[in-house]
């Protein structure tokens, strides 16, 4: 190991440690852990391929949302968010930058229930009973931390190769 490398290695290690402290590794719910129930949805039966896609894409949507709110960069939202839901999250990220308040979400569990799947297959309406950890930081200092059990009404619409979240709205009850 050269002298320069000897100097660099501990510095890199320290930098990695600091980075891990500041940006903890994402522990979002993987798609395989998202429970989806389709009985009771109709009038069309939810196909197996749609079930798999929705589980995968909903998990990805949450990951991109958490990352966007953490980094203050809304560009990643385009991958899984469209329409109203996309616009609202973008506005929230702009507000974060303006106020220097950061909102961290970490989803712990999702229980999805498909409630409406029209015959044309152009949308899928779901209920999500989720457990989410919320942390609010003001100028880098944690001012609030809480685990919330949230009920979301979710409207997803199909794109070319994935399902997008069009509406994500928390409600007091279903």
């Amino acid at each position: 190991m050269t002298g320069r490398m000897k100097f660099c290695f501990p510095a890199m290690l320290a930098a990695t440690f600091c980075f891990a402290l500041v940006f903890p590794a994402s522990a979002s719910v993987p798609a395989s852990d998202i429970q989806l129930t389709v009985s009771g949805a109709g009038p069309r039966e939810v196909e197996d391929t749609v079930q798999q896609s929705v589980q995968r894409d909903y998990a990805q949507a949450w990951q991109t949302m958490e990352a966007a709110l953490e980094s203050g960069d809304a560009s990643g939202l385009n991958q899984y968010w469209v329409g109203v839901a996309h616009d609202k999250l973008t506005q929230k990220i702009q507000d974060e930058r303006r106020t220097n308040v950061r909102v961290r979400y970490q989803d712990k569990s999702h229980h999805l229930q498909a409630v409406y799947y029209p015959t044309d297959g152009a949308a899928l309406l779901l209920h999500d009973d989720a457990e989410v950890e919320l942390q609010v930081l003001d100028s880098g200092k944690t001012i609030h931390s809480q685990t919330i059990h949230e009920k979301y009404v979710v409207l997803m619409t199909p794109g070319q190769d994935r399902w997008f979240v069009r509406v994500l709205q928390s409600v007091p009850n279903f």
Partner: protein
Amino acid sequence: MRSSFVLLACCVVMAAGTAFAADVTVPEQAKAGSKLSLATSGSGEATAVIVGPSAVVKHKVQLGQPITLDEDEVASAGRYEVILESGEGNVAKSFFVVAAKPAHLSFVAHPSRAPVSQRNGIRGSVYAFDPDNNLVTDPIPVIFKLTEKEKASIQKQTVSKNGVASIALDSPQREGAVQFQASSGDVNATRVVRVVADEPCALRIHAQMQPKGVQVETDPVKDCSGNLVPDGTVVTFTENDAQGRSTVDANVKKGIARAMLPAQGEVTISAASGVALGNEVRLKANQ
């Protein structure tokens, strides 16, 4: 005596502390897009951070005075967290904002071309949104109306559930464009559905000898409701003669399908389209 006095003094200090502790009162529920006032208690200054579905706002607060949230600060439906930061520590409360009255309907009609006389052949789904694009999840009445030209309309009312109202209506017997309208209160949306003829119901053919073969054509091809089938509907003509069997596919144009068949000697010609079979025609062709 002395101990009673100390106890009383402690109670007074605790009561005073409680009375002047920073706190905020939130409603259980509020309407989206309506100005909101949150009462605070305590003394001194504080900072209120409000986190909503589409907004993160910060207000300097004089404790004891209310926090006023403008319409655009509570425009989105969902959970709001209010965190009051003061010298005495932080207090957090949450409340829900729910969608206001519907302001526009997202109406999906399916299919855009429906065959005539189909049971539940025309379907519609309506998602209602308020002025701030929140999905209205409370049940609302939705009226669906299907109007044919120069005919009385079919009207059905339903109530939305989980943010969506849907309907399935029988398609009319006559082909043509129909207006499919959904309305809730004073908001409505209209789509146009083209009703087209169904599959052929029956086929009748006639044939005529020509120098180069047999000219065969159908009578006007209609569905079971008496509408001419659409152009492009395929009719298959089959010819059997001394040479064997041959088939020709012909498209319907303006209700009629035509074909020229090569023929020799005794010829039998028949036609079929979908489930409809035509009559048989027997001819003696030129040798």
